[in-house]
């Protein structure tokens, strides 16, 4: 069967990424990178949702 998905699979290493954030706890903007999470020995939970101001 033709490969249609080139995305990550469970069990694979996640490549380093870095994203801009709004840090509600500080009321300020920030940045999170997987590299830093790994250096700090932290677990990461990524929680995607469709859009701000929506409902569930």
């Amino acid at each position, binding site marked *: 069967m033709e490969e249609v*998905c080139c*995305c*990550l*699979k*469970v*069990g*694979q*290493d*996640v*490549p*380093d*990424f870095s*994203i*801009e*954030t*709004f*840090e*509600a*706890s500080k009321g300020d*903007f*920030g940045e*999170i990178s*997987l590299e830093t*999470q*790994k250096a700090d*020995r*932290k*677990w*990461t*939970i*990524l*929680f*995607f*949702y*469709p*859009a*701000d*101001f929506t409902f*569930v």
Partner: protein
Amino acid sequence: MSTDTKFVHLAWQREEKMLENVRYPMGSDATGNLSRLFGVYDEETGLALRGTFIISPEGKLLNSEVNFYNLGRNIDELMRKFKANLHLAKNTNKVCPSKWKDEGDKTLTPSAKLVGKVYEALK
């Protein structure tokens, strides 16, 4: 994490009372690149599907769950998976059965002896 900008995250968190206790960082994936990497980017709408991913401190993807737009996620199941990951990271010879909920619940130790005897081991 959504494809909104950090500015919209700020505005939403300040406006919506349901979010007043939010303490986690709200990430912006305005390019959709991270959503694409995790296979949750919807090219037709430019939005991300409801995907949840747990990554270990070593950077390995351990769990993945994706729901369509119209079904919210259950935080109890996310916490169950997260606690199980913590337990399994410390007890690398164990496995957590589907009914495992928290520390103290029964785990299994895979071995030749256990084959065909899971029912007895969980009793």
